[in-house]
C-alpha cells in the first residue's frame, strides 16, 4: 500500500499541474464520456512501454474528485481488459490491472464499494485465464485489495469462486517447477487474502463454513507436507508478514495456517480441525508421525490459548476413528501426536476439562487392553506401542498440571483399577498393570511435600488394596509408585537393592516433620501391615521383596523419628519371625526375608544415629557373614544352602527382641512399645473383609489399641481355616513350662528346628495334595495328645505369673497360640 503522505503529495502535485485541463475540457465531454477518454489515455501505444504515468495521475485525480464515476471507470477498464484477454494482448491486461490497483489504493473507503465490484470481476477474469502470469498478477491485486480495511459492509460480495480457484492453484501441477511453485505461492497468498478479508467481518461470507474449510485447510496442508524437513518453532519471525518475504510454499502455507488458527474462535476450531484430521487420514500422513506432530504443534502454538483444550479433545475423539488404513500403528501414531501436544494444552486446562482428558485417555487405554486381550497372537507389540503412547500422553499432561491436580488424577486413575477380588481375568490383570503404569507415570511427575497430601486416605487405601493383587509384577509396579511418592530426597535410586553398608550410600536424611508424624501415626499400621502381607506371598520374586524393602527403607528415612523407631523395629522382628514360621515361603524367600530384615535393622540406627543399636546389628551382620552369607544382602533368586545352615537352624544369628529393647533403652528411647504384642498377623492369607477396613481401623483405633491381644487371635481364627500354616512353634515343645516357652521364643534348638522344618514341609505337602477325607482320617487318632495339650494349656492359663502383654514374649505367644491348639491342634502337630 502506498504511504499516505505519498498520496497527498501526489495529489497536491496534480492539483497544481492539471487544474487548467480540468477547466477547459468540459466542452469535449459531449463527444465521448470524459472518464472513457481518461481511461483510454493511460494505455500506451505499445504495451511494453507500460502505464502512462502522467495520464494515470489524471485519471486518479478525476476519480477522486468525482467518486460517483468510479463504478463506470471500473466497468470500462474491465471491458477493455476482457477484450484484451480475449485477443491475448496480455501487456495491456497487465496495464489495466495496474491501473485498477492504483485506483483502488487511492480511493477513499466510503466510495470503494462501487469500484470493488468491477475490480473483483477483473481479478476473477484474470484468474480464469490459463496463463500462469495473469493468474499470479490477479492474485497480487487481490491480496492488495484484501489488505484494505473497508468500513462499509459488503453484504452481496461472495468469495466462493476465489476460495475454489485459489485452492486449485495450491494444487498446481505445472510441469515447470519454478512456475508451479509461484502458482502455488499465489494460491496460498490468495487464500490468506480471503481469510483476512472475511474473518473479521461477520456480514460477509462465513469463511468457517465446511465448504470453504474443506478446501482451504487441505490446500495448506498439501503444500506443507512437501517440505523436506519439519522444523517446528513456537512462532514465526515477525518479519514474515508473508506478502513478499517467503518464497517457499511450505513456509508460506505454515504462516497462513497459523494465521487461520490464530483467528479461529471457539466455535470455529472444530471446522479447522475436522479437515485437518480428514486430510491426515486420506493422505495417510500419520505414519511416520513427525509431520503430524509438526502440524499439531503449529496448531497448538498459534491457537488462542483458552481453546487449546479443544484440539486435544478433537484428536482424542479421533484416536479410534477409522480411515487412513487405520491400523493399530496409526492409532499409536495419533496417540504419539497427542502426547506431544497435550503438554502444551495442560497449562491452560482447568477443572472438568482436565478430568475429561484423563478419563478419555483411560477409556482409550481400556479399549486397547480389551482389544489386546482378544487377539493376543499378533499385533501385540503394536497395541503395546499404542498403550505406551497413551500412557506417555497421560504423563506429559499430568506433568504440566499443578500438584494438587496430580493427586486428583492419581485418585481418579486408582478408582478405575479393577479390584483384585475374585479371580481376575487376563484382561483385568493387563488393565491393572496398564493403569498402574499410568499411575506411575503421573506419580513421577508429582513432587511430594507432605505425606498426608500425597496420600489422602482414600488414595492410600486404594493403593494398599492393589498391593495384594495376585500378579507379582503388578505388585512390584505398585511398590514403584510408592517409591516415587514417598521419596522426597532422591534416596530411592540408592536403595533399590537391600544392603547393610549405608555409610557409603550417602543417603539424605532429615528430621521427620510434625505433619508427617501425625500421618504415620494415623496410617502407619495400615501401610506397614500391607507391606508385611506383601512379603508373605508365595509368588514373590526377589524383585518383589527388594521393592518392598525399598519402600520400607524409604519410609524409615522419610519418617526418621524416635517416635516411629519402635514400630519399625517391631515390623522388622515380625518379618524375621515370618521368615521362620510362614510355611508357604520357599527356602530362598526365607533367606531373602532374613536379609531384608537385617538390612532394615541396619538402616534404622544409621538414620537415627543410635550407636548401641548400630553396634548390635553390626554384630549380627558380622556373625552372619562368617556363618551364613545367605542371610545377608544382596538378594538372589537361588540359594544353595546346606541343610544345617538353614535360617531356622541358626537361632543365635537372629535379631533378638530383648536385645533390641536394651539397645533402645541405652539410647534413651522407651522400648515398651516394642514389647507389646506384634500386630502383624502371621498368615499369608488374611480375610479380605478384614483388610478393607485397615485404614479406618488404624485411624480410629489408634496404634495402641492394636496391641489389644484379643483382636489378634479372633482374626487369626477366621483366617485359619484357609491357612493351615498359621501357627507358632512353641506348640511343638513337649513339656510346656515357662522356661520352655521362653526358650522357644528366643528360638528353638537346632534339633527342634530340623524337626519342625521337616514337619512343616510334609504338612504342607499333605495339605496341598491329600484329599480331604484322608486328612480327616489321619488326624483322627491324635486325641490323646490333644487332650494332654489341653490339660497343659489349662494349667498354663491358670498360672498367674504372666499378666497379659506385660512384657514377656512368651506370655504373648502363648496367648495367641491357645485358640489354635484348642481346636486345630491335629493340623499343627501332624
Amino acid at each position: 500500500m502506498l504511504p499516505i503522505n505519498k498520496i497527498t503529495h501526489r495529489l497536491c502535485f496534480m492539483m497544481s499541474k492539471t487544474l487548467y485541463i480540468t477547466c477547459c475540457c468540459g466542452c469535449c465531454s459531449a463527444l465521448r464520456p470524459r472518464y472513457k477518454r481518461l481511461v483510454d489515455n493511460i494505455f500506451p501505444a505499445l504495451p511494453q512501454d507500460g502505464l502512462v504515468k502522467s495520464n494515470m495521475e489524471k485519471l486518479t485525480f478525476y476519480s477522486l474528485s468525482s467518486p460517483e464515476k468510479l463504478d463506470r471507470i471500473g466497468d470500462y477498464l474491465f471491458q477493455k481488459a476482457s477484450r484484451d484477454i480475449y485477443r491475448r494482448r496480455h501487456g495491456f491486461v497487465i496495464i489495466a490491472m495496474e491501473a485498477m490497483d492504483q485506483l483502488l489504493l487511492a480511493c477513499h473507503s466510503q466510495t470503494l464499494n462501487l469500484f470493488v465490484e468491477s475490480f473483483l470481476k477483473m481479478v476473477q477474469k484474470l484468474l480464469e485465464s490459463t496463463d500462469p502470469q495473469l493468474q499470479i498478477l490477479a492474485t497480487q491485486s487481490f491480496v492488495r485489495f484484501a489488505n484494505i480495511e473497508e468500513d462499509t459492509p459488503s453484504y452481496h460480495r461472495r468469495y466462493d469462486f476465489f476460495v475454489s480457484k485459489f485452492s486449485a492453484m495450491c494444487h498446481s501441477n505445472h510441469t515447470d517447477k519454478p512456475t508451479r511453485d509461484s502458482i502455488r505461492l499465489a494460491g496460498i497468498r490468495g487464500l490468506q487474502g480471503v481469510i483476512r478479508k472475511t474473518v473479521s467481518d461477520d456480514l460477509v461470507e462465513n469463511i468457517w463454513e465446511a465448504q470453504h474449510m474443506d478446501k482451504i485447510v487441505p490446500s495448506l496442508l498439501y503444500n506443507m507436507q512437501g517440505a523436506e524437513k519439519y522444523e517446528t518453532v513456537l512462532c514465526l519471525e515477525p518479519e514474515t508478514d508473508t506478502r513478499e518475504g517467503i518464497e517457499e510454499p511450505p513456509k508460506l502455507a505454515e504462516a497462513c495456517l497459523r494465521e487461520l488458527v490464530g483467528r479461529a474462535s471457539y466455535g470455529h476450531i472444530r471446522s479447522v480441525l475436522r479437515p485437518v484430521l480428514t486430510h491426515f487420514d486420506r493422505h495417510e500422513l500419520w505414519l511416520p508421525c513427525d509431520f503430524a506432530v509438526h502440524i499439531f504443534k503449529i496448531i497448538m502454538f498459534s491457537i488462542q490459548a483458552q481453546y487449546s483444550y479443544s484440539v486435544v479433545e478433537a484428536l482424542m475423539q479421533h484416536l479410534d476413528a477409522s480411515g487412513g488404513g487405520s491400523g493399530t500403528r496409526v492409532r499409536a501414531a495419533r496417540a504419539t501426536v497427542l502426547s506431544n501436544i497435550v503438554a502444551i494444552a495442560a497449562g491452560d486446562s482447568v477443572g472438568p476439562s482436565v478430568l475429561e482428558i484423563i478419563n478419555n485417555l483411560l477409556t482409550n487405554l481400556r479399549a486397547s487392553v480389551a482389544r489386546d486381550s482378544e487377539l493376543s497372537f499378533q499385533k501385540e507389540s503394536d497395541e503395546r506401542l499404542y498403550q505406551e503412547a497413551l500412557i506417555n500422553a497421560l504423563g506429559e499432561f499430568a506433568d504440566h498440571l499443578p500438584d494438587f491436580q496430580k493427586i486428583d488424577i492419581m485418585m481418579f486413575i486408582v478408582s478405575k483399577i479393577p479390584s483384585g477380588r475374585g479371580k481376575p481375568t487376563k484382561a483385568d490383570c493387563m488393565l491393572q498393570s496398564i493403569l498402574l503404569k499410568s499411575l506411575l507415570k503421573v506419580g513421577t511427575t508429582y513432587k511430594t511435600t507432605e505425606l498426608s497430601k500425597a496420600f489422602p486416605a482414600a488414595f492410600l487405601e486404594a493403593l494398599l488394596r492393589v498391593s495384594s493383587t495376585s500378579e507379582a509384577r503388578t505388585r512390584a509396579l505398585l511398590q514403584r509408585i510408592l517409591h516415587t511418592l514417598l521419596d522426597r530426597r532422591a534416596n530411592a535410586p540408592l536403595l533399590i537393592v537391600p544392603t547393610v553398608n549405608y555409610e557409603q550410600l550417602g543417603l539424605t536424611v532429615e528430621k521427620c516433620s510434625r505433619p508427617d508424624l501425625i500421618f504415620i501415626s494415623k496410617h502407619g499400621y495400615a501401610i506397614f501391615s500391607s507391606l508385611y502381607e506383601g512379603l508373605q506371598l508365595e509368588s514373590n520374586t526377589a524383585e518383589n521383596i527388594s521393592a518392598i524393602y525399598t519402600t520400607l527403607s524409604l519410609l524409615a528415612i522419610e519418617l526418621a523419628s524416635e517416635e516411629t523407631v519402635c514400630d519399625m523395629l517391631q515390623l522388622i522382628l515380625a518379618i524375621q519371625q515370618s521368615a521362620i514360621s510362614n510355611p508357604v515361603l520357599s527356602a530362598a524367600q526365607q533367606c531373602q526375608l532374613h536379609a531384608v530384615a537385617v538390612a532394615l535393622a541396619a538402616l534404622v540406627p544409621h538414620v537415627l544415629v543410635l550407636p548401641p543399636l548400630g553396634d548390635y546389628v553390626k554384630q549380627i551382620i558380622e556373625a552372619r557373614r562368617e556363618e551364613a552369607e545367605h542371610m545377608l544382602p544382596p538378594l538372589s533368586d537361588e540359594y544353595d544352602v546346606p541343610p544345617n545352615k538353614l535360617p531356622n537352624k541358626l537361632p543365635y544369628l537372629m535379631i533378638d527382641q530383648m536385645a533390641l529393647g536394651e539397645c533402645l533403652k541405652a539410647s534413651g528411647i522407651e522400648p515398651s512399645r516394642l514389647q507389646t504384642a506384634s500386630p502383624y498377623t502371621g498368615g499369608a492369607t488374611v480375610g479380605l473383609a478384614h483388610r478393607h477396613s485397615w485404614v479406618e481401623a488404624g485411624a480410629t483405633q489408634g496404634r495402641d489399641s492394636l496391641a489389644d491381644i484379643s483382636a489378634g487371635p479372633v482374626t487369626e481364627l477366621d483366617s485359619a481355616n484357609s491357612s493351615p500354616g498359621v501357627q507358632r512353634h512353641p506348640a511343638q515343645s513337649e513339656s510346656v513350662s515357662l522356661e520352655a516357652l521362653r526358650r522357644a521364643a528366643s528360638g528353638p534348638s537346632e534339633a527342634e528346628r530340623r524337626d519342625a522344618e521337616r514337619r512343616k514341609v510334609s504338612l504342607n505337602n499333605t495339605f496341598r495334595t491329600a484329599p480331604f477325607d484322608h486328612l480327616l482320617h489321619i488326624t483322627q487318632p491324635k486325641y490323646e495328645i490333644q487332650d494332654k495339650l489341653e490339660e497343659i494349656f489349662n494349667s498354663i492359663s491358670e498360672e498367674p505369673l504372666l499378666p497379659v502383654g506385660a512384657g514377656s514374649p512368651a506370655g504373648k505367644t502363648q496367648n495367641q497360640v491357645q485358640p489354635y491348639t484348642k481346636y486345630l491342634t491335629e493340623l499343627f502337630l501332624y
Partner: protein
Amino acid sequence: MEDYKFLFKVVLVGNAGVGKTCLVRRFTQGLFPPGQGATIGVDFMIKTVEVDGEKVKLQIWDTAGQERFRSITQSYYRSAHALILVYDISCQPTFDCLPDWLREIEEYANNKVLRILVGNKTDREDREIPRHIGDDFAQRNGMYFLETSAKEAENVERLFMEIAVELMEQAKCKELPKYDGSLGPINDKNKAVAVAKVHVLN
C-alpha cells in the same frame, strides 16, 4: 466483446485415469494431451458457449480421481450445477465404482444437481462395458448418459453443449432461484446490469 448471461459450474468426477482431464482439455482447448499426468487436487477451466444466441459461461472443475484427494474434491460438489460422472469403458473396475460415486454425490452435492454418466475412451478396442449396460445404469439412477472419446473428439462438444442447454432451460424455468447464492462473486442484480449495459453499448 465477451460477456455472458448464464454461468454454470460443472464438476467432473470418476476414478483416476478415466480421462476426466482429457475431456476437459479437449473441450476447452481442443487438444488431446498424450501422457497427461494425474491431476492433483482440483483443476479449473473456463469455456463460454453460445446457446440460442445467448452466451453461457461454463466453469469446469476437473477433480483428481485419486482416493487421497477425495476430501477436497468433495467440497467442490456442493456448488456444482452439473456433475459429470466418468468411467472408462475399457476398464470394468471404474464402472464397478459407480455406485460408490453416486453415494458420494448423494451425500455432498445439491440434490437437484444435473447428473450425467459418461463412458469415455470409445476409441479403445478392448471395450469391457457394453453400451447398453452403461445406459441401463444411467437410467436406473436417473442420469443422462453419453459415450465419448476425448482422443477422437467424439461427443465431447455435444456433452458440454447438452449440459449447457439443459441447465439453461432449467434456469429459465426457475429464473435460477436456487442457485442464486452460489454464482461466484457477481450477484444477479449486477449481472443483469452488466448485460443491459452491453446491449446499450452494442
